[in-house]
C-alpha cells in the first residue's frame, strides 16, 4: 500500500510539473466550454426533453475519445522506451502497484478535469436562472452524471493504460487507445440495439445508463459491469507490463 501511495505521489508530482498536463487541461476545458455553449444555443431555439446538464454529460464520448488517449499514451510506452520501467522493476515494486499507481493518478486528473468543466453549467445557472425561471443545474442530474463519469472513466482509462502497455511508441499507444475506445462505444451500442443479445445488451449501453442515472434510477448491473471490465483490463495491463519487461 505504501508503495502504491509513493508511486501515486510521484506520478501526481510529475503531472503537476509537466507542461502537457496544462495543455490537456486547457484543451479539455475549451472543448467542454464550447460544447456547453453550443448546447445552450441549441436549447434556446429548440424544445428538448432532457436538461442542458444531462446533454452536457451526454457528450462524454467526445472528451473520452480526445483526452484519454492523450492522458494515458505516455504512462507505460514512454517509460519502456526510455528504459525507466526496467529500472523501476529492479526494485521491490510489484507490477500491480505500478499499474494501480499510474491508474489512480490519471483517473484523479480526469475526474478533476470533469469537476472543473462543471464550472460552465454552474455559471450558466447562476446568470440565467432568474431569466429562465427554472434552474439549469439540478442535483439529481448532477449526481447521476457524476456517478456515470466516475464509473465509465474507470473503464476508459483502464483501456488507455492497456494500450500504452502494449507498445513503446506513444503515437501507437494513443491510436490503439482511440481504437479501443471507439470499438467499446460502437460495440456496446451494437450489442444493445441490433444483436440477439439485446435483452442483456441494454445494460451495457452507456447512454441508457447515463439516462437512468440522471433520472435517479441506480441500476447496479451496468455499473458493476463497467467496473469489473475495468478491473479485468487493469489486470491484463499488469500482465502485459510484466510479460513485455521479461523479454
Amino acid at each position, binding site marked *: 500500500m505504501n508503495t502504491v501511495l509513493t508511486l501515486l505521489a510521484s506520478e501526481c508530482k510529475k503531472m503537476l510539473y509537466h507542461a502537457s498536463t496544462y495543455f490537456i487541461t486547457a484543451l479539455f476545458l475549451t472543448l467542454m466550454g464550447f460544447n456547453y455553449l453550443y448546447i445552450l444555443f441549441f436549447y434556446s431555439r429548440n424544445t428538448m426533453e432532457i436538461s442542458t446538464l444531462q446533454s452536457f454529460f451526454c457528450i462524454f464520448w467526445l472528451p473520452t475519445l480526445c483526452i484519454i488517449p492523450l492522458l494515458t499514451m505516455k504512462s507505460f510506452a514512454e517509460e519502456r522506451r526510455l528504459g525507466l520501467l526496467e*529500472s523501476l522493476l529492479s526494485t521491490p515494486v510489484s507490477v500491480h502497484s505500478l499499474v494501480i499507481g499510474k491508474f489512480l493518478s490519471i483517473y484523479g486528473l480526469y475526474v478533476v478535469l470533469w469537476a472543473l468543466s462543471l464550472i460552465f453549467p454552474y455559471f450558466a445557472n447562476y446568470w440565467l436562472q432568474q431569466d429562465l425561471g427554472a434552474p439549469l443545474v439540478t442535483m439529481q442530474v448532477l449526481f447521476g452524471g457524476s456517478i456515470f463519469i466516475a464509473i465509465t472513466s474507470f473503464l476508459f482509462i483502464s483501456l488507455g493504460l492497456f494500450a500504452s502497455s502494449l507498445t513503446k511508441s506513444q503515437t501507437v499507444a494513443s491510436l490503439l487507445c482511440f481504437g479501443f475506445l471507439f470499438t467499446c462505444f460502437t460495440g456496446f451500442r451494437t450489442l444493445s440495439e441490433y444483436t440477439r443479445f439485446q435483452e442483456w445488451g441494454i445494460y451495457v449501453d452507456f447512454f441508457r445508463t447515463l439516462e437512468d442515472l440522471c433520472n435517479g434510477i441506480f441500476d447496479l448491473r451496468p455499473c458493476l459491469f463497467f467496473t469489473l471490465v475495468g478491473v479485468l483490463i487493469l489486470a491484463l495491463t499488469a500482465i502485459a507490463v510484466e510479460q513485455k519487461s521479461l523479454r
Partner: protein
Amino acid sequence: MASAIVVRDLTKHYGRKVAIQKLNFEVQPGHIVGFLGPNGAGKSTTLRILCGLIPASSGYVYIHGLPITTQVKQIKQSMGYMPENNPLPEDMRVEEYLKLRARIKQIPHRLLKTCVWDALERCDLHRIAAKKMIGALSKGFKQRVGIAEALLGQPKVIILDEPTIGLDPHQILGIRDLLKKLRGETTVVFSSHILPEVEAACTHLIILNQGQIVANDTSENLRKQYFRTTRYEVTIVDKDGHFSEHLSHAPFKLCLKKSIAQGDQRMTYTVETESTEEWAESQLTRWIFENNWPLIQFVKKEPDLESLFLKLTSVAWKKMDSERL
C-alpha cells in the same frame, strides 16, 4: 564463508536462440567481479537474471542463500542495480530522484535522509549536483547518479551493467575509485568493455563468449594459465651487438622477439622465457651481469588483459566453429 551469489546451470533461451548456456559460477561476499565478453556474449542477460528482472529458462540462482525464483522480492530489497545505458528521468532533481527511489526501495522513513545523503556523498554528488536537474548533468555525473541509486540502502549485492560506457578517462577513474571503495564491504558484479578498467577494479574476472563462460578466475591466475611464457624488455649497452648470439648459450631457453637500437650503442631487446616463475627473472638478470653487459633497464612485460581476452574469445570461437562443422 557462504557465497554471495551462486549460479548453477543457468540457461536462457530467447525462442530458439540460446543467450546463455549452463553457466556456473560463485561470487564471494565483498568481491568485485567483472563480466567481460564481446557483444552478444550474454553479459546483460546474465546480470538481468541475477537481479530478478527476467526469469531463466533453467538453472538456479541463489543470492545470499535465497533462491531467486521464489524470493525475488526479498532479493530485490537487498540488491542495487544499474541497467545498461542508465535510464534516468531527466526532469527530476538528483536528490528528489534518490529520495523517491529510496521510498520505493522501502527504506524506513527515519533513515531516508541519511541513506540518500550517504549515497550522494559516496558518489561525490553532494557538493554541486544534488540540487541539479538530472537532464542538465554531464554523462559522468549521470552515471554517478545511477550508481548512487544502486547504492541506496547499502545493498549486499550491487549489479552494474556497463557503468563506464561513454565516459572520458577522468570520469572512468572516478568510477574506478568508487568501486574500489566498495571492495570488501559490498559484492559488486559489473560488466564492461573497457578491459584495463575491469582489471584495475576487479578482484575476479568472468569472461563470457557466445553464452558460455570461457574463463573464471583472478586476472593473475588467468595470465599464468593462458600465457606459458614471460616477456622481458632488456636495455643494455651492446658494443659488439653480440647479445643475440649469446642468447643460445644462456643456461635456460631464451627467445629473442624484437631488438631496437636506441643510439649510443644502447639496444633494447625483447626476450621471452618459457617459464612464468619468479626464478626465471633472477636467472636472466644474473646471466646478463655474468656476461658483463651494462644493464640500463630491465622490464617485465606482463601480457595485458586485452591479449588474454582476445586469446580466450578466439579460442572459444574456433572451438564453436569446429563443432558446427
